[in-house]
């Protein structure tokens, strides 16, 4: 069983990690979390991103937003790089989310097959 004492230890570890962080993150990931996104499975996508980002310590922040306006293509994940360039990934599931994390956030390669451009074509 997890105990609250354990949380105190984790707090101290996290404090040290935060001190070591240098400047801005390379990427900002945004997940659509309105009714349309939630019904389509946005919650497991967000949870998969959190788990993967924590484990591999990628340089990214994760945020949630409301309806992005493409409800039939939910779950939607947007990735912004440091220069503000946006990549929109559509119809994402937890497996695809992990792949995007490893390829795009980890190595800087856009996963073309899941982008809105490729799917709509």
């Amino acid at each position, binding site marked *: *069983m*997890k105990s*609250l004492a*354990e*949380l*105190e230890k*984790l*707090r101290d*570890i*996290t*404090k040290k*990690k*935060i001190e070591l962080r240098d400047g801005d993150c390379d990427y900002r990931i945004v997940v659509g*979390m*309105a*009714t*349309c996104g*939630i*019904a389509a499975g946005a*919650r*497991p996508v*967000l*949870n998969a991103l*959190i*788990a993967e*980002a*924590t484990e591999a310590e990628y340089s990214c922040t*994760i*945020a*949630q937003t*409301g*309806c*992005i*306006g493409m*409800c039939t293509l939910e779950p939607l994940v947007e990735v912004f790089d440091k220069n503000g360039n946006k990549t929109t990934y559509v119809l994402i599931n937890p497996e695809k989310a992990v792949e995007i994390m490893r390829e795009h956030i980890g190595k800087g390669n856009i996963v073309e097959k899941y982008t809105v451009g490729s799917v709509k074509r």
Partner: protein
Amino acid sequence: MMQDIAMYILDLANNSLYANARNINICLIVDRQVDRLQLSISDDGQGMEDFIVEQATDPFYTTRKTRKIGLGLAFFKALADQCDGEFTLKSKKGVGTTVMIDIRNSHIDTPPIGDLSSTLITLIQADDLVDYRFTYRYDHQEFEFDTRKIKSMLDDVKINELNILLWIKEFLSERINELQEGKR
């Protein structure tokens, strides 16, 4: 419609977040003896005018800018209608909103509870300034979780640091499973 109760909770608490709530109370009661499932979400957000409360469950009412329909409350009300239940929406401008359902637990259309711990950490992740109290009563056992208590232990570390969130998720899963298996 949503596949499980945890998804409804996420969706309705998101309404509270959009209404700029700072405190959100989620209360889930499952009582198999009286065969009821009750869920309420209340917030101290901006609330709604009386005439809007009347329209809020109409799918064609929304204050969203990206589309012309709002489905969250309509879905929740439909769930109550389907499962021998009642839907209540109370709101006061400037004070807050409470939405609840009381449905028959064994009804064929009553969805499973689903992944409550994922829902809760998704909500906590969205905004570390919002506090949640989650009360879950299952038959005669009860579990309560309050983000204020967690925050009081974290000093200046944010509750939505990813590894803290993952810890909370596991903590919640353990307690919730225990509660549902009736071991407490």
